[in-house]
């Protein structure tokens, strides 16, 4: 627990450093000007959500292979955090859209696909809460997580690139090169690392909380000792 506190403090300090760099070190860019600063929140949120969905599917697969409830906990927690970061990406994206395009929401292909992604993972929570039997819930939501991961790359990577969109081109362009000012690139990498650390801290916190809740349920007379 002490280690978790120390890494919490390190993550918070690194986050303050990155926020300082975003607002005071990153230069304004051609075209976007000062508006570019939102990119350093928007891109990490989107990347972390994709990473979380992939982790969720990997743990779901491990659950189906081993039937150890710990993997289901990890899978569900990663999906929950993925949804949260996806929501942050959607909100920061809508703000970015307002200040660049002129409208918060225009059902642009990027916006439509992220909306479907939110619905897809949002539905998985509804599914989990509807099933009370722990093993049944773990099995069904693991299968759901694996099906979602098949759809996710199409929604995030394929469809938005297929249609012409108002969304800026990806940072890694079609020639697989990063056309970015070095200061911006280092700040973006630092922001990605901090966002990953933030994900890790939140993940540990929620896993611990779920574990405690499950144990309390197991000990209660209604719990039935199903763990």
């Amino acid at each position, binding site marked *: 627990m002490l280690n978790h506190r120390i890494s919490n403090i390190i993550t918070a300090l690194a986050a303050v450093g990155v926020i300082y760099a975003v607002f005071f070190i990153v230069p304004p*860019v051609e*075209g976007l000007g000062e508006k570019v600063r939102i990119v350093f929140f928007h891109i990490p949120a989107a990347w972390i959500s994709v990473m979380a969905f992939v982790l969720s599917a990997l743990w779901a697969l491990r659950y189906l292979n081993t039937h150890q409830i710990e993997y289901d906990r990890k899978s569900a927690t990663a999906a929950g955090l993925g949804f949260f970061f996806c929501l942050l990406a959607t909100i920061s994206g809508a703000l970015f859209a307002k200040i660049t395009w*002129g*409208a918060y929401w225009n059902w642009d292909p990027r916006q439509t696909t992220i909306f479907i992604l939110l619905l897809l993972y949002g539905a998985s929570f509804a599914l989990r809460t509807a099933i009370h039997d722990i093993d049944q819930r773990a099995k069904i939501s693991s299968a759901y997580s694996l099906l979602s991961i098949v759809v996710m790359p199409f929604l995030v990577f394929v469809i938005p690139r297929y249609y012409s969109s108002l969304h800026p081109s990806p940072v890694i362009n079609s020639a697989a090169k990063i056309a970015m000012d070095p200061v911006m690139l280092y700040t973006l990498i630092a922001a990605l690392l901090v966002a990953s650390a933030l994900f890790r801290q939140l993940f540990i916190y929620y896993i611990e909380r779920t574990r405690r809740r499950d144990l309390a349920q197991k000990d209660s007379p209604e719990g039935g000792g199903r763990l």
Partner: protein
Amino acid sequence: MTKQHTISLFIIFSFLIFCAVTYTHSLSPYVSFAEARTTKGTVQVKGTLSADNIAYLPESNQLRFRLRDDAGEEALIVYTGTKPEGLEHTASIVAIGRYQNNQFAADKLLIKCPSKYQRSVNR
């Protein structure tokens, strides 16, 4: 994998492919001028400025310019309202409105900024 699993997976993937084929067209709100001409309601046409010929008429607060849609067709856009910031330097423009009398009457203009991520030379 049992026979039941194979059948369920087949049904799920057939449904996904069906959805992909049927609904992909509706994933993009943007249409060409050719489609805009045949549509009665409000549509969104996405394209690029065909030349640096943006005319602004202050007395009627009207903006007139030619837009080339993604299919390559050009048409005159007439927009009443404040000129969006940096219109001349945009990567592409979305005009929302309707096609009438051989011109596109836009109620709203959305702007795509060029994403260069390079230091501004003015500073």
